[in-house]
């Protein structure tokens, strides 16, 4: 089965350090999403891309977070500088959205990166 691959699986670092999380979407999928899961906020969308172009990053703190897709096989989410409140599980998901069909394809999630900022 094709899977979304996220690295690293776990990351522990000190406040102020740069953190980079990587995602390899399923081959052929044209949309990539970044979600964050915390106990307090639940699952919330940070940003998403269609055909590598950013469509919506309104859920992302712009001053410290950045999301990019250097190519179709790699999406990155960076935090610089990191803060303790960024501690969460970060999920990448990919999907095949065909606008004329009404977007009825499900999203497939990676296993997440558990980030702890000390």
């Amino acid at each position, binding site marked *: 089965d094709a899977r979304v691959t996220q690295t690293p699986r776990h990351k522990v670092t000190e406040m102020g350090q740069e953190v980079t999380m990587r995602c390899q979407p399923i081959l052929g999928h044209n949309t990539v*999403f970044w979600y964050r899961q915390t106990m307090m906020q639940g699952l919330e969308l940070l940003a*998403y891309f*269609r055909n590598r172009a950013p469509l919506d990053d309104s859920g992302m703190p712009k001053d410290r977070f950045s999301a990019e897709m250097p190519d179709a096989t790699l999406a990155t989410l960076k935090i610089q500088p990191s803060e303790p409140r960024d501690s969460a599980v970060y999920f990448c*998901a990919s999907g095949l959205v065909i606008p004329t069909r009404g*977007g*009825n394809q499900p999203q497939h*999630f990676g*296993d997440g990166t558990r980030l702890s900022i000390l």
Partner: protein
Amino acid sequence: AQTVTQSQPEMSVQEAETVTLSCTYDTSESDYYLFWYKQPPSRQMILVIRQEAYKQQNATENRFSVNFQKAAKSFSLKISDSQLGDAAMYFCAYRSPGGTASKLTFGTGTRLQVTL
């Protein structure tokens, strides 16, 4: 903006019994998609079942079925013949139809315990 509400933070069911998890949502759209995702302790997000709003027939996947009430904006998940492996967090999610609005809006989740 759409919202999704799961009013049951925790539920418990005995093995082999049936349990229903509730989900309601708020939207002004007429065409949309609804999903149930399962998140076991391994924290994977696993798609359980999906429903297109334009379909009146309730979706079914093996032991999982939904009761979709469009007028009431309700989308409950029924798990029949519950198994220990069903223990997990269950998230209800809403998605607008295609174009740029294809992000998922999640509920807060229901933790399901399965007892012997």
